[in-house]
């Protein structure tokens, strides 16, 4: 197919650094040089790196907020339906009981479960939202093929400039990364 001819030979080029400051400096320099398709890898979260790479704040918090609202609404609907509906709405009946003279929609009694379901749905949206936005599970990724990358979860910091960057040229990028004082620069095969 035609696409294969245009596909670059490597996924990107990876530079290894020994500490987080070098990585942040390198990311800033690369951004200033005009590279946009980059990623940093580190064993611990490095503050300032995400911004240095030029990304905007994630929408995850909004997703969690929506999850919380959904949880609250489901709890209200569930409890009002079960405790107050007695006429076959949509062909399904609730099971209203007279308990201690309380009205059927005894909303103070409904608070604990509303609270719990709000939290449950928020937790689900936080975790699955984070995993989903990250594109995980992704057991295969070309960066795993790079030499020495297994130390990304151990003690080394990496900067990878990807080949779908408009300014990407393997030799140029390798030379450029070399100027940032890395410990090592390796290509990332597909």
């Amino acid at each position, binding site marked *: 197919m035609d696409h294969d001819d245009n596909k670059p030979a490597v996924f990107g080029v990876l530079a290894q650094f020994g500490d*987080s*400051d070098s990585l*942040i*400096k390198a990311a800033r320099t690369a951004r200033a040089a005009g590279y946009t398709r980059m*990623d*940093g*890898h*580190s*064993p*611990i*979260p*490095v503050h*300032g*790196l*995400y911004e240095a790479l030029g*990304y905007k704040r*994630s929408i*995850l918090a909004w997703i*969690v907020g929506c999850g919380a609202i959904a949880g609250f609404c489901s709890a209200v609907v*569930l*409890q009002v339906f*079960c*405790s107050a509906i007695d006429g076959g709405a949509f062909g*399904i*009946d609730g*099971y209203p*009981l007279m*308990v*201690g003279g309380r009205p059927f929609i*005894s909303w103070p*009694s409904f608070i*604990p*479960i509303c*609270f*719990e*379901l709000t*939290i*449950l749905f928020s*937790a*689900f949206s*936080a*975790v699955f*939202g*984070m995993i989903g*936005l*990250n594109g*995980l*599970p*992704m*057991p295969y*990724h070309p*960066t*795993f093929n790079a030499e020495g*990358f297994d*130390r*990304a*979860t*151990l*003690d080394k910091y*990496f900067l990878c400039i990807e080949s779908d960057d408009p300014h990407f040229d393997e030799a140029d990028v390798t030379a450029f990364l070399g100027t940032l004082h890395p410990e090592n620069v390796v290509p990332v095969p597909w």
Partner: protein
Amino acid sequence: MADLLEDEVFERVVDVDGQGPLIEGQNDLASIDHDIGHIPFMSLKNTPKFWYGGTFIAFCVMQLLFLAITVLLWKGTGIWGLNVPVAWGFAIINFVWWIGIGHAGTLISAILFLLKQDWRMSIARFSEAMTLFAVACAGLFPLFHVGRPWLAWWLFPIPNTFGMWPQFRSPLLWDVFAVSTYATVSVLFWYTGLIPDVASLRDRANKKIPKFIYGVMALGWRGSARHWHRYEIAYLLLAGISTPLVVSVHSIVSLDFAVSVVPGWHTTIFPPYFVAGAIYAGFAMVLTIMIPVAKLYKVEHFFTKRHMNNMSKVMLVAGLVVAYGYLMEVFFGYYSGNEYERYMIMNRFSGPYNWGYWALILCNIAVPMALWSYKVRTSVWACWIVCQFISVGMWLERFVIVVMSLHREFLPSSWDAYMGTKWDWMMYIGTMGFFCVLCFLFMRTLPMIAIFEIKELHHKTNHHHDLDDH
């Protein structure tokens, strides 16, 4: 220049706010990873003997649980000591005891995280795991105490053929939602925290099967900055929602008692008093586990005197709140002027179970006063022994609340005595074995201290900033 740096590093690690080091000794990211991460990879020969011994003993004790449940399912709840009026006995006592213990994990992980207490990092992982195991043990009791556990699905709002739905005004049902939510959120929180560590284990694994299993668990984590960004947001939000969750769950458990009209139960102090009691018991259990484990697995440089000191202080505060609760109960009994409330208090002091009440005061108030002393707080043995007293004391507290209020209620002709039968005790002790087995399995297969968090802590205390905008 290099030795100046080392001295500075030592200075900084030792003198972090003058309270003693959080990580002792010389470390770097790789050594931290190794100290914790090599434990799951120990071969059968290298696994310490205490692990084999401990797991075996715990496994044998766990068999008591299976035996007790089997006989219970076969013969029914009549084998327990329940009677009228004491229709709720060991099952609810043990349920509340285990759930209370579980709360420390979420408190350490979530609340201390929000309060930016860095010392939580070495204990957070094990205490989160402990929460899950404690909730698992706790859940057995409500499940099996219903008499017909195969109908336990009736507790959930599931469409059925007889057109019935649960009654949402009952705290017993709030409990179902609260404890289920708590269990689920704890699993999610624990698992989220594990992802980067399991990725590290995946990369360190040499053999195929561990690499595959850890690889599947790690979901392909590669430490990408984009992923870390969302991870940190998710973790902060989870901590933020777990904090009200932990307070609400034990409050709802306390409402099981507080919404009734039984003297000694019908009091508004129960929610905060139970939550403080949960923190108390939970921290005691975390220390009970961490102190020997840190020593045996040689990770004492991550679990230092400062951790013990801080945790003991939290226990002391929780203990004082619990003591206040006891005092207020006595005051309410007097001040209410109500003969049933007054009798309830007099019964605690001088009735047939007063040994339980005075043992409670000893274990929960008198002995933990030793924690005022810095020497006791930082002494491995003294602190551990105080924790055992607290664990026993918290069980006695639930015993006093449940049994002493029920056995002598409003109508003297209904008064009776209660004690657990051997099956009650067997199930309780069996759950302790179950809990220990789960802990041992966890220690053996997963990193028991959060590797990336310790690395972060090390990085924070040793980092020399020369970038302007931090």
